[in-house]
């Protein structure tokens, strides 16, 4: 146990630790949404996917005893919800934003409905890898107990960045997002590309949910997400559909979420509600500074309904 306090160093350390602990769901949802939106469709339903993923991961982990099976189940649940979104959106004249809101309700409701008996039991959690072995500061050691999902997410960002630029699949997704006519002219089914992109997006969002219930905060309850999924969707637009920027944005958001409690722990007690809203103030401020009315959002897929 820690005997020594590290005083004001708590704040930067908490922001650093928070960036690692809190960012992972944002990272997975935003990377997933990045793939979906690059294909020309927006899925606002990832909030529901995240919650559903968290619930199913916890349930499967509890029933099977294997948290990794839980992660897989969360991913598959997410992919199914993604398929549902893509399926409905492929009907003519159906608004993808509205379908997203519908699935947000449906996913959240279903997760709450099925998750009632899972609040009290304790399910096996995902393990942490100890990266702080070299340090003798217990606080730093604790901050560096990292889950492999976080590392996976961090690695996924540059892989996606690369894949969008250079692989055939990346090009196809971007073509579908920039001009469905062009994709069709190349002999590809735009609907099929978007279906796959939305399913992959849902898969990743589901895994983001499994992190919430199986690692941090590490149990299932109905307040678990409190809007993280929808915020992560917002992060994608904020990050200009760039996976690397999604990574930085998620880390910043996670760090900002840790700011409020950390400031209180060192005695800054004024206006804690305002500090707790720091991530939202921050995002808004950065968007106001970096956006410009003179050009459309750089990097925005031309087919995306939200930017048209």
């Amino acid at each position, binding site marked *: 146990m820690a005997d020594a306090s590290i005083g004001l160093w708590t704040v930067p350390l908490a922001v650093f630790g928070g960036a690692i602990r809190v960012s992972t769901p944002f990272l997975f949802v935003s990377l997933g949404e990045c793939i979906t939106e690059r294909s020309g469709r927006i899925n606002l339903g990832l909030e*529901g996917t995240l919650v559903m993923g968290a619930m199913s991961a916890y349930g499967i982990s509890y029933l099977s005893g294997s948290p990794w099976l839980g992660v897989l189940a969360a991913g598959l649940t997410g992919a199914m919800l993604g398929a549902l979104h893509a399926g409905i959106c492929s009907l003519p004249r159906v608004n993808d934003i509205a379908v997203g*809101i*519908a699935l947000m309700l449906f996913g959240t*409701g*279903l997760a709450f409905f099925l998750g009632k008996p899972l609040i009290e039991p304790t399910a096996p959690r995902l393990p942490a890898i100890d990266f702080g072995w070299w340090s003798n500061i217990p606080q730093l050691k604790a901050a560096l107990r990292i889950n492999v999902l976080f590392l996976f997410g961090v690695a996924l960002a540059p892989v996606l960045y690369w894949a969008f630029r250079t692989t055939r699949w990346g090009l196809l997704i971007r073509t579908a997002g920039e001009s469905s006519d062009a994709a069709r002219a190349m002999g590809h089914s735009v609907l099929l590309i978007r279906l796959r992109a939305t399913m992959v997006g849902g898969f990743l969002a589901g895994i983001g949910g499994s992190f919430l219930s199986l690692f941090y905060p590490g149990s299932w309850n109905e307040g678990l997400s409190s809007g993280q999924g929808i915020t992560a969707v917002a992060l994608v637009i904020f990050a200009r559909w760039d996976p690397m920027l999604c990574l930085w944005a998620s880390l910043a958001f996670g760090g900002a979420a840790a700011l409020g409690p950390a400031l209180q722990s060192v005695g800054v007690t004024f206006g804690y*509600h305002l500090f707790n809203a720091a991530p939202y103030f921050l995002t808004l401020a950065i968007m106001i500074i970096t*956006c410009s009315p003179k050009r459309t959002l750089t990097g925005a897929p031309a087919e995306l309904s*939200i930017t048209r």
Partner: protein
Amino acid sequence: MTSEVADSVEAAAAAPTGFLGRHGATIEYILIPGAALAGALVVFGIFVALFGKNPLDLYFYMYQGAFGTWFSWQNTLTRAAPLILTALCTALPAQLGMVIIGGEGALLIGALSATSMALAMPSAPPLAVQFAMAAAGMTGGGLWIMLSGGLRQYRGVNETISSLLLVYVALAILNHLVEGPMRDPASLNKPSTREIGAANMIGSIPGTEVHWGLVFGVIAAIACYVLIYHTTFGFAARVAGGNIRAAKIVGLSVGNLILTICFLAGSCAGLAGMVEVAAVQGRTNANLAAGYGFTGILVAFLARQNPLAVIPVAILIGGIGASGGLLQRRLGLPDASVLVLQGIIFVFVLASDALYGRIGFLKGKP
């Protein structure tokens, strides 16, 4: 029992379609949403049957809880009142092609502004206070959404995201004020502002227990409908919503359109906040963040962004909410069943959009 529910809803949905059906597709506008609703109810029935509940009981209790008695009707209408106003906060900007999902924030700011106004004029006659509260609520909510509109127009910030972020900002401001500078020391375990006073409460529609918010909502919805479909301003907004470039070419000031529409949208949600204070809570506290703003988004999309259709849809969603308690108590279903049902209905109604103009026997119609 199914048909009973579906019938009543079809009847409800029929009300605005007379206006909608100017092009002769009236039947389509009744039949398709009605069928979608019936389909959703069937799917939900199967869903609860999986958990060992009798779907017929389900339909019966839903009908009874929402529309079965005068008490149920009042329950439904009370719940519908704030939803009409918050739905307009999404439906109006949708005419311009904007997706605003921050009605909850405007509601909270509207409530705060209205309460502050009432507290600032302690000795004024009630009617003056009520008018001032409504004006303050509408201005506060209007400016809040106008902020999103302005950010989009002058900084190119996406309005969907900014309006959502502003919900959290509004909630933080509200919590900060009611727990700090505006806190009534006597509010103890529920930090609140001081009360606006019983005399200043707006009360219920005579003969009912439904508060005046319902009337405000209906008037606002009709006014918005007239504005959008029967004025030059509304025509300009729809032109701009269809094609911004075309609107600019014909010399429309898109910036002014955006700001005005966003202000009007926000003032609807702000009025909902004022009504929650002046008809229900009597003061501002965290209870106001009850999710009316978010449910309003659902209502707006289900109404296909038509301000008049918002009224029956809000009543339908209010009815589902009203029947939710009975489903818990009689059938032992968890509270989340209401969310599941809303999600299923929403999915069905959206998917049914694909059917318009494709039903064989209606095709011959002009």
